[in-house]
């Protein structure tokens, strides 16, 4: 994906988004009809050519990337109005819905923006939790919907508007959960003198709005923290790895230089590195100071290193002693065994 391609695609998609805004107004569409048709044609052709190019480059792995699947879906939605037009004729009532779905085209921008992609991966890891909380909420609503339908939706004296069938009951409950205009709904139930209505509503509001929706926030906070921490750690590790690789490269280069130097001088008389620097060493004087401030030549490091080495020595010494003891015990066991056998065989002979 070269930079030029990215720039072209981003500008195309933005232009498309902007033109979609223009075509929402009927008057503009009426006046600039030819422009509308031509621009639609151009955009559709650009999208399909992008699709074909990407597919041609990598036929099999193309389907594994989620963003490519998004592109495919958007291409399909772009072609829906045409196909509906052809198949069902001009006055299909749902034609304007197909037009409305065109606004999804702007989602193609996400592929080209790295920041939003990282955000979506970070947030997407919380998707599982989100889905489970929503399903739990749905189950709760289902229980209360059936309860409400039985209690308040009976055809004779019930409130048919709000609790008449399951779908309407769901809507009413969702309205209660998002505590929007619930007092009006409660008022209607009160007008019909239902005994339990207040308890029912208050319990449901407490459960759904306070408990569930707040739990939603809490769960999202925890998961967002986790995923952000993980993401940052991965970034650090990646940076560390590249740094190490660069250091290795420098090291290798230095080694190559020295070996090259030695190769050139090899035929002269030097045989190894230490002989090579013998002469250099002789030029070093004791009174020449060298000021160093790196960790490897500092006093605490020397102390720590020597102490660690001493520790290592003691451990090895202890190990050696243990080994000697093992050998000693094993040799004792070996001596004991044949004697035991002899005594056993002598016992058997005695018994006989």
């Amino acid at each position: 994906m070269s930079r030029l391609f990215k720039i072209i695609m981003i500008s195309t998609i933005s232009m498309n988004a902007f033109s979609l805004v223009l075509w929402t107004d009927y008057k503009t569409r009426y006046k600039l009809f030819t422009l509308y048709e031509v621009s639609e044609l151009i955009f559709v052709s650009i999208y399909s050519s992008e699709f074909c190019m990407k597919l041609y480059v990598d036929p099999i792995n193309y389907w594994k990337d989620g963003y490519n699947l998004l592109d495919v879906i958007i291409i399909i939605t772009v072609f829906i109005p045409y196909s509906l037009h052809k198949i069902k004729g001009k006055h299909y009532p749902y034609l304007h819905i197909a037009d409305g779905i065109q606004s999804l085209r702007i989602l193609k921008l996400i592929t080209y923006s790295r920041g939003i992609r990282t955000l979506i991966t970070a947030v997407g890891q919380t998707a599982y939790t989100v889905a489970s909380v929503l399903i739990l909420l749905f189950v709760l609503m289902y229980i209360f919907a059936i309860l409400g339908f039985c209690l308040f939706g009976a055809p004779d004296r019930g409130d048919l508007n709000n609790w008449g069938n399951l779908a309407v009951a769901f809507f009413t409950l969702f309205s209660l959960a998002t505590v929007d205009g619930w007092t009006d709904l409660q008022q209607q139930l009160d007008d019909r003198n239902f005994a339990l209505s207040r308890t029912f509503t208050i319990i449901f509001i407490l459960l759904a709005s306070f408990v569930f929706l707040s739990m939603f926030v809490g769960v999202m906070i925890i998961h967002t923290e986790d995923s952000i921490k993980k993401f940052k750690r991965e970034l650090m590790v990646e940076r560390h790895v590249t740094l190490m690789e660069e250091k290795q490269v420098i090291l290798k280069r230095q080694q190559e230089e020295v070996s090259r130097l030695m190769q050139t001088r090899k035929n002269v008389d030097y045989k190894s590195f230490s002989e090579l620097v013998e002469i250099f060493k002789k030029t070093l004087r004791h009174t020449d100071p060298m000021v160093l401030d790196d960790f490897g030549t500092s006093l605490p490091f020397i102390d720590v290193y020597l102490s660690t080495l001493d520790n290592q020595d003691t451990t090895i010494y202890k190990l050696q002693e243990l080994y000697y003891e093992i050998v000693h015990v094993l040799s004792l066991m070996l001596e004991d065994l044949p004697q035991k056998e002899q005594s056993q065989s002598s016992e058997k002979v005695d018994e006989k």
Partner: protein
Amino acid sequence: MATYHQAGHMQLPRADAIRSRLIDTFSLIEHLQGLSQAVPRHTIREILDPSHQKKLMLGDQHQLVRFSIKPRRVERITHGQRMMSSLRVRCSQRPPLSLWAGWVLECPLFTNFIIFLIFLNTIVLMVEIELLESSNTKLWPLKLTLEVAAWFILLIFILEILLMWLSSFFLFWKNAWNVFDFFVTILSLLPEVVVLVGVTGQSVWLQLLRICRVLRSLKLFARFRQIRVIILALVRALKSMTFLLMLLLIFFYIFAVAGVYFFEDYTRSTRQDLEYHMFFSDLLNSLVTVFILFTMDHWYALLQDTWKVPEVSRAFSSIYVILWLLLGSIIFRNIIVAMMVTNFQNIRNELNEEMTHLEVQHKADIFKRQIIQRRQNLSPEALRSSLSKTDARDASQPEESLVLEASQEKSQHSAAEEGSRASASKTKESLSKMKKSSSSSSSSSSSSSSSYSSSSYDSRYFDSLGQLDWETHVHQNLPGLMEMDQDERVVWPRDSLFRYFELLEKLQYNLEERKRLQEFAVQALMNFEDK
């Protein structure tokens, strides 16, 4: 690279690193290529030391000097300090006016005076607005005093801005709080200027501009450190949420445009009792409606209203509304809350970073002392091996404590260290000789080494009873130690440094050899057992 290592040696990355460090420090490559003149041989200390400097100047004046650049943990250098060190200021006869202006601005008396004036301004404004309408003639002197006070305060603020400009014009604009101050003052100055110039009429505008005086009390925010910290944290949290807000805007766009198309029939219907008729009429209205739905206000009423029109399919409209509610208002809002909480936590942690850094340094300090303690415990018991070693240790130990405590005085420091380095290098030579001989297991030195290690074994045994084992302890404290030593510099004599690197490299090979010998011994033991 067969010629790189000695014959028959395995490749050790650690030894390679030490050798490369040696080559780097001494610039061996240049020396071996015959370019000895290209290598800097002197350090900055010698140039700054007057006695050394004379000697160098008398000799060859075309020598190269090695600078070592290290990031030091310095506090911020103020503008005043910078100006004082500039050559122009030091050579002039009188201090420049900007220095005086900077001093005045930082003087606590002046800053408290300004804060007091801001409070006074707020009070004056409040009283003035109350008295604006009353036409009581007895209150006229009060009104006069209030007006005079307001003008006086404005003049002082202008004077403060002039002082800041005098102190440093360009730095003024870099600080956002100063720019804010500037704009507030200009805004409150504008109505007076306009009145003076003589533009009449449009008193509403003037009233509004006068009210901008109230904004001056916002200047208070810049003065108190706590408020500043909170606002900075808020701005940083918002900055890190830019992508989230962009994503939200994209979704707003999608649902707004889709809304216009979905509810076309609703907009075009001719029924008279639709409350929200114009809510999806064109894109701007649709955007506002989407925002209304985002705040979950009267969404059910809106939905029921759309159901009144029979052409609108109930399924699609309810899917639209419910989907947007779930996605935007429930999921997105909570994502925003979650991100703000995480960001606030991160920001608080970063602001506390100073404290954690100090803690780590403190621990590293304790660790250093522990190491010294261990060496001290070791020295009386190692008397058997060689007297020179104990002498060196005892000599190095007070030197090392001197090093720790007087790390600021570098000259004293370097003199002590040179002495300790010289003895310590001898120590290390004898130590490494012992290690080499222990790996070849000759009897006399091995006995001394075993006695040495048995003594250290005793002391270690008592030491390590109550705490973590040595390895984990070292690993925990090592990073702190590495960061801590940024201010100390060690002066090495050149040949000892060379010898140190050489010995360190040989030590790695010897340790590796010992490990292999150990493994052979274990193998032999296993084979013996099978018999």
